[in-house]
C-alpha cells in the first residue's frame, strides 16, 4: 500500500498545503496515492502566462503533477507540467529545468517552496539555461514575438479545464 507508513513530514506538509495554500497555488494529494499531488499554478501577473480578465479571471491555469519519491525529503520531488506551455526552461513533455529540482535540492525545501519557485520561473524565464533550445533561441532573437507565442499558448491550453 502506497499510503501506509507515510512519513509524518509528508502528512504535515499536506495538511499545511490544504489549510494554508500559497497564493495562486493549489496542491492536493491523489486519493489513491498520497505521494502523488495534483497541482494547479496560476500564471503570475505581468507575465505571458497570466489569465485574461473578462469580468472574471479566465485561463492562465497550469496543471502540474508532483510526485514524492520514496527517498523524499532526501531526494527532490518529481514535478512536471501537464499543461502545454511555451517557456524556455520547460520542454514539450512538461519537464522543468530548475536547479532545486536537481543538484541544488535540499531536504530543507518543501513542496510549497518548490511550487513557489516554479511560479517564479514563470515570471522570469531564463533563456540562457534552456531546456527547449528552439524556444530559448526564439526568446533571445525576438523576445516580443516569443512572449506573444507564450500568451497565445496560455490562451489556447491553460484554460484550467
Amino acid at each position: 500500500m502506497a499510503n501506509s507508513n507515510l512519513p509524518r513530514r509528508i502528512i504535515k506538509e499536506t495538511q499545511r498545503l490544504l489549510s494554508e495554500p500559497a497564493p495562486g497555488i493549489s496542491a492536493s494529494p491523489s486519493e489513491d496515492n498520497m505521494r502523488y499531488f495534483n497541482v494547479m499554478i496560476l500564471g503570475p501577473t505581468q507575465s505571458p502566462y497570466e489569465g485574461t480578465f473578462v469580468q472574471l479571471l479566465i485561463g492562465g491555469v497550469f496543471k502540474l503533477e508532483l510526485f514524492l519519491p520514496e527517498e523524499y525529503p532526501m531526494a527532490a520531488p518529481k514535478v512536471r507540467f501537464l499543461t502545454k506551455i511555451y517557456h524556455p526552461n520547460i520542454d514539450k513533455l512538461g519537464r522543468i529545468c530548475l536547479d532545486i529540482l536537481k543538484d541544488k535540492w535540499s531536504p530543507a525545501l518543501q513542496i510549497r517552496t518548490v511550487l513557489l519557485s516554479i511560479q517564479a520561473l514563470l515570471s522570469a524565464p531564463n533563456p540562457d539555461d534552456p531546456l527547449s533550445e528552439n524556444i530559448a533561441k526564439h526568446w533571445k532573437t525576438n523576445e516580443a514575438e516569443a512572449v506573444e507565442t507564450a500568451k497565445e499558448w496560455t490562451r489556447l491550453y491553460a484554460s484550467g479545464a
Partner: protein
Amino acid sequence: MGNTMQKSQETKVAELGQLQQEEDSNFSCEICIEPMLSIRKFKNGSLCKHPFCKDCIAKYIEVTVEETTGCIECPGLNCRQLLDPLSCRHIIPKPIFEKWCDRLCDSAVLGSESCYCPHRDCSVLVLNECRDKLKKAKCPNCKKNFCFLCKIPWHAGYRCNESRHLRDSNDILVGELIEEKKWTRCYNCGHSVERVSGCRDIKCKCGVQFCHQCGGPFHFGSFHSHQVKGRLTVAPSRKVDSGYPPLHVSVLTREAGAGIINFIKDPDPAWFTKQLNLISFFKVNEAFPSCIVT
C-alpha cells in the same frame, strides 16, 4: 482505495493533537518539520546554526556522501557552509564516517599531482606539492630517483622523450656519467658537451645553438623555470613522531593493490590546509586510529 484517504485523515487528526502537545519544545527541525527538544539539535561546530535534528542530519549525510567529493554542504537554504566531519562523527555510523573520510582523502589526492614510485619494491604514492612541472624526483621513501613525468626509474642523461628507448647497460652507465659530469646533450644531435667556462650559449658542432643548462634551443635572458626544486611527500613509513597524523587513502591504494597505506610523511601543514581546506580532516583521522596501518 477510497478508505485509505479517510484513514490517513484520521491519523492526521490524531497526529495533529499530538503535535500541539509537543509545540512547547525548543525548536523545529527544518527537515522533518518536527518540534524538537534542543538536546536533539545538531550543532555544526561553530560554522552555522541551522535548525536540524541529529537524526535528519545523519540521514542526510548517509544519502549525500555517495554523491559528493567529500564536501557536504549544510542543507540550510542558501547556506554555503560545509558540514564539519568532527561534529557529525558521533551521530553517524562508523562505516558512513569512514566512507566520508575516504571521499575527502580522494579529493585531496586528486587535487594534487601524484604518481606511484616506479621502483617495484617501493611503489608508494608520491605527491608533488610544488605546483611546478617536475621531472627528476627522489622518492622520499626508497630514496631512489625516478622521473615524475615518465613515471619510470630515473633516466639519467636522457630526456623524457628518449627515455622509453631500449638501452643496454652501457647506455645507462654513459647516461649516469653524463649526469655526474654535468654534461649537457645537444637537443639536435644528442652529442654531449662539457662546459668548462663561459656562458650557457653553446654552439654545437652540428650547427645549432643550445642552452647548456637545459639542453634545449638557446634562449636569451629567459628563466630556467625547470630548475625549481620540487618538494615531494610520500605515502608509507608512518612516522608517529612527525606530529602529523597519516591520512587514510584506502580507495586509491586499493586500486594499486597495495592495501591501506599512509601518505604525507611530513607535510607542510600551512600549505596543506590552505590548499585543501581540510583542517578538520586532520583532526578526523587523528581521532580515528583504526585508519592507520603500521
